[in-house]
């Protein structure tokens, strides 16, 4: 089928432990309030929103790091909404995630080769050293980096290792959670160019979470705008930038300071 992900009325609430009474359950905070959208095979979907919009939570729900409290997520025909770890394990190699913070997303006491190779070993791949080398090559890092530790790499290089780890398993879908937000402008440009190339070369389906609409415009074919746990607008990228429908989208666009002194920005 054409739809890789089908999300219907997705809800997720977490207990507010700060307000928990002595006896009884804590009151719950609704983070995701009924989201519905599809992700087509081969598309790059942008998910944009401010802090507190729920975009990170949505991402983690899609790869089942969190379990939804309501609604459904269907991945390639399988309902993964409430599947337990045993049921998820065989599916895990088909959807992967790249994390935001290059410092904390790589185990500081594992070498790069182990970081990329361990998930492969878990899923019973063969020829792991070759696959690790191939993954490093795909992201433009020399094979010698395999014996380095994360602290011996720059932020941009670490982020590329995170990408290599995700693509090494040849997944169908990758979730990228604010992967360029912590990077310098030059590293950011490099990583995005790399991602563009990989999507084309490997036929990946990507969900790209960011707070930066400028970055989203470059990479994504369709955009979801989130505010307070709900979708306020979904549209093809060009249409969103040319004619934003929701007031929130317009506010976001108007707030972006372009590197142009002539921009009308008051």
């Amino acid at each position, binding site marked *: 089928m054409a739809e890789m992900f089908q999300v219907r009325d997705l809800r997720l609430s977490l207990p507010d432990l700060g307000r928990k009474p002595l006896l009884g359950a804590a009151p719950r905070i609704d983070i995701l309030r009924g989201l519905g959208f599809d992700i087509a095979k081969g598309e790059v979907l942008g998910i944009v929103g401010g802090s507190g919009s729920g975009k990170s939570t949505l991402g983690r729900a899609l790869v089942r790091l969190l379990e939804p409290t309501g609604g459904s997520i269907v991945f390639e025909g399988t309902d993964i909404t409430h599947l337990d770890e045993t049921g998820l394990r065989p599916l895990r190699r088909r959807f992967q995630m790249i994390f935001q913070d290059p410092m904390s997303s790589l185990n500081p006491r594992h070498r790069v080769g182990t970081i990329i190779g361990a998930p492969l070993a878990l899923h019973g791949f063969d020829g792991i050293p070759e696959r690790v080398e191939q993954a490093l090559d795909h992201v433009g890092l020399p094979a010698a980096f395999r014996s380095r530790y994360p602290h011996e790499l720059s932020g941009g290089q670490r982020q590329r290792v995170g990408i290599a780890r995700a693509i090494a398993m040849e997944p169908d879908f990758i979730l990228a959670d604010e992967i360029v937000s912590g990077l*310098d402008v*030059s590293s*950011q440009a*490099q990583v995005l*160019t790399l991602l563009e190339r990989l999507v084309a070369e490997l036929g990946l389906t990507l969900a790209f979470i960011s707070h930066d609409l400028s970055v989203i415009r*470059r990479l994504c074919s369709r955009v979801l705008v989130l505010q307070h746990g709900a979708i306020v607008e979904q549209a093809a990228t060009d249409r969103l930038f040319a004619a934003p429908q929701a007031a929130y989208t317009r506010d976001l666009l108007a*707030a*972006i300071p372009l*590197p142009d002194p002539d921009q009308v920005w008051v």
Partner: protein
Amino acid sequence: MSFLEVRNLSARVRGAPDRLLRDVSLSVAPGEVRGLVGESGAGKSMIGKAVLGILPRAVEVLCGEILLGGTDLLRLPPAERRRRIGATCALIPQDPLTALNPSRRIGPQMTDRLVDILGWTRAKADACARDLLAEVQIADPDRVLRQYPHELSGGMRQRVLIASAFAAEPKLIVADEPTTALDVTVQKEVLRLIAGMQARHGTALLFVTHDLGVVSKVCQSLSVLYAGMVVEDTTVRDFFRAPAHPYARALLAATPKYTDPDRSLVPVAQDVLDGVQAQVDAADRGWRNG
């Protein structure tokens, strides 16, 4: 006549072979907003800290001058330097969370400097604090003065910090990446506030940032840094029209610009990096020999 003038400032981590700041020179006129731009590790924060006298203990100044209103801060005895900086300068820090003392109320934190260093009465300081909080559009200044930092939102805390910086009419404010951690809509509010207050009070502003978009909105002039070396120093108008230095040009091309998706977010080419690195190496050789 500039209010702040940095001349040939070099600094390094104690015991390290390479310099952190390489012969940095820049000036800020009274009432001017100058941007200090560069990637992480370029030294832009270090310069701000050097001016305010808050360099980390591990960093030593090797040579150069920091002239504040004509007096070289580096030649003053430490107590006199602290007094002079405290009386004429202020900082808008990057992280509103850690910049406020969590166990003291907002009011005393804002007025301490006024009472201790400038010798104001508590009443006068409190009135000043109240006025400033109103100026940064905080609805109920009296209540906020009595609150603790954890009772305020991130945006509110940043407003308090901005207000604190402008207390006692400093001649120079160093803003160290004040909006990096903020949402884009909150950033717009905060930048508007800073620009507005700067214009009203006529304060000189040294604005440290990595975001060229922000620079184009707030600054009149900028210095671009690479590895602790100033590679371009020009007005904002001239810079965005045609940056002179290849590295600065590449930085601009790499900056996201959604109105021009194909000609922005361009990675910096290796030969540009090699070129600017060669410049740095040549400067190091000259410094070691001369």
